[in-house]
Structures are given as C-alpha cells and as structure tokens.
C-alpha cells in the first residue's frame, strides 16, 4: 500500500450513507484525503486487501493501516484529529452518543433493509417499525439544535446521511417523514447548512433513482 504510506485514503461508494459519515467527519476536521470510488460489482484488489473480512466500503486507509466499519472509522478520525471533537468529553454523554449511533444502525438501517425488499404485510410491519424508530430518534433530539446539543456531533454524523434517504423511505413505505417527524426534517435542513454535510450528501431524488435501478438489477419488485 505504497500510495497510502503517509496520506489518508477513503475507499467509498458515491451514494453510501456509511461512506458519507466518513466524508463528513473528515471534512469537519479539515483533513485532506484521496477519495477512491469503488465499483461494488467489481471490487478492486485494494479494497479486497484492505477489508478482506467484509469486502465492504467504507475503508479508511491512514499511514498504510486500513480501518473498516463506518462508526469505527468516525471514532478513529475523532481520536486522531482532536480539533472539533465529535464525541463529548464526559463518559456518560459519550455512552449516550454511542448508544444512539448504534440505534441508527441496529434499527433504522435494519428497517430500511426490509422496507424496500418486501411487500404486503411484511412491508406494512417494516413501515410501522421505521416510523416508530424515527419517532424515538426525534424524541432524543427534542428541541436541541443537534443531537450533540449546541454542537454538531457523533450522532448527527451517524444519522444525517440517512436524511438524504427520507424521500426514498417515504416513497417505498408510503408515509411522510415531515408529517410523522417534523423536528427531524428541520434538523436535517439545519445540518445541510454545514458545508461538510451539503458537500457529502446527494440529492434525495438521485438516491431514489439509484434504489429504483438497484431494485431492477436485483429483480425486486
């Protein structure tokens, strides 16, 4: 991995919300890096070498060392570059941040995996679960500016890429995120005012287009 001897390389896929977490974190810290777009249907030797266990993106390669799993990458970035901390300093507050970031993965991402692949009763259940999970997140946000309070933090980084998927969730699941969780929509708009976020996320209609193509490719419909 001679090319990455000193620098920072991110192996990624344009629409991946997991990759976007890393892009946002790097941007928040002002870290320069080389972005490498992966073709997930024809994975590069570099990706297979950097992540032999999961063969997935994102992978951050720093000083030749590969780090995998998006939330682990974000924590690594936060620990190596200590400016603009994403995690708070108090252990209990840090635990709460980790808990809610984990919730986004265990619940919202999991729901999403069901929502677009199934039909009928199963989809109805996925829709109900999705709304319930989004409402729980909205409850945690409350009237705060960000999940991190006054400052943009770890949970914001973990969750905001999925806001570009709200339109897709709504269309596939037949519900309105704005109607069910207006505070979340307002929060997402606030986050988009940050350059790190607006430069990393894609237009929601582009995301939806991608999912439609993916569904066709996988014969799901």
């Amino acid at each position, binding site marked *: 991995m001679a090319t990455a001897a000193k620098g920072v390389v991110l192996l990624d896929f344009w629409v991946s919300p997991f990759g976007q977490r890393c892009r946002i974190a790097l941007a928040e810290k002002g870290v320069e890096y080389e972005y490498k777009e992966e073709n997930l249907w024809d994975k590069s030797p570099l990706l297979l070498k950097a992540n032999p*266990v999961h063969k997935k993106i994102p992978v951050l390669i*720093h000083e030749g*060392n590969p*780090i*995998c*799993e998006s939330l*682990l*990458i974000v*924590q*690594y970035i936060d*620990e*190596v570059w200590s400016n603009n901390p994403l995690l708070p300093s108090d*252990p*209990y507050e*840090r*635990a*709460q941040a*980790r*808990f809610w970031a*984990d*919730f986004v993965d265990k619940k919202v991402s999991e729901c999403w995996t069901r929502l677009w692949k199934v039909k009928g009763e199963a989809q109805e259940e996925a829709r109900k679960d999705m709304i319930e999970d989004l409402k*729980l997140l909205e409850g945690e946000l409350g009237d705060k500016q960000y999940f991190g309070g006054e400052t943009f933090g770890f949970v914001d980084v973990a969750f905001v890429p999925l806001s570009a998927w709200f339109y897709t969730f709504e269309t596939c699941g037949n519900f309105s995120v704005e109607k069910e969780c207006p505070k979340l929509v307002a929060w997402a708009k606030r986050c988009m005012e940050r350059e790190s976020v607006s430069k990393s996320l894609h237009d929601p209609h582009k995301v939806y287009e991608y999912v439609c193509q993916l569904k066709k490719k996988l014969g799901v419909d």
Partner: protein
Amino acid sequence: MAEAEVKLLGTWSSPFVLRIKWALKLKGVEYDFIEEDLQNKSPLLLKYNPVHKKVPVLVHDGKSIAESYVILEYIDETWKENPILPEDPYQRAMARFWSKFGDEKFLPSMWKFFISQGEKREEALVSASENLKILEGELKGKKFFNGETLGFADISLGWIVDTVSLLEEIMELKMIDEQRYPSLSAWMKNFSDFPGIKDSFPPQERMLTKYRTLREAYFATTRGTN
C-alpha cells in the same frame, strides 16, 4: 450505608451480561447484580432501558447505560485502572472491529448452525467454520487478541470459551479442535485461566439444559417443513 452506586441488570446466562461482569471485576468495581426475568420484565428494566428493554444495563449514580459494547467503553473511561482498550487509535479501532465481528458475524453464524437441520445445517457449518478461520488468522502468534494481556476484544469474544463447548457437547461434534485451530484453542485456555475469569462462567449443567431446550423448540417449529 448508601445504596450501591453501581448496579448491573442482567440474567445468569447471558454472554453479553457476563462480559460486563468481567470488565467490572478487572477494574475492581463493586456492584449490585439484579437478576432479571426476561419473560416478565421488571419496571426497573423498562425504566432503565426503555428503548430496547434488554440486558445488560449498567446503572451508575442513577444514570443508565445500555448495549454491552457501549457499557464496556463507559467502564473503561470511568474506571481507569487496568485499561481494556489500548491507547493507540489504530489498535483501538482493531479491538472494536473484532468485538463487532464476534457479535455481528460469528455469533449469528454459530447460532444458525446450532438450530439448523439438513442441508441448511451444512451451509451454516461452512459459514461458521469460515468465521472461525478468520478469528484464528487474527490471533496467530498472540496470547490474547489484545496482545500479552486480556483486553476489549477478548472480553467481547470470551463467550466463545464456554458457549462453543456447550454447543459442541449438545451437537456431539468438535468445532474448535487443536489441530485446525491451535491459536484459538490456546486462547480459550489462556482466557479461562486469567485471574477473575476462571470461576465466572454460569453453571454448565444449567446451561446445557437451557440450550438443549432451546434447540428442541427450534426443531419443533421447523419439523415437517424441512
């Protein structure tokens, strides 16, 4: 004397709870253990973990923390003696990676193998064995996943030590043998010999009954559909 400032809500058999007990023991933290009945969840559990309603939950000075790996990090940051995570950010990322691998890949693959029958069982065995090879590869040459001493990844993967032996006994086959998995076999011994770990595993007979019953229940629901 004031009420114990640290409480752990858990069950006698949960491997996720056990890892918290290990961490607290390593750090020398005294706590009250509250046994929960997951078929009949207590108001205390529902109060302290309203989102997932699961164990383990750590309560420290009235504040609750849920999800085992979140609790482990909290314990390490709050009680500084005998650090569980290394200091170097890359080594920390690796420790977290292997902990996640254990929970999200290896554990489900072992469980699937345990409850499958027929053709599905063969497929599940291949998957579980592949995961074992990966763990063996990561350990090679090291006493613990953390190096010379026990750490975060070891604590997270420690459930392998007694649970895999249990499943092996019930299924009447050896999965982690010394020939194919010399490093893992040595690690299992090093881990269980570590001070504080040795006599901490739940009673074997009780566990055997529990897992046998669970397996029978799974077989009963799939009988006639295989």
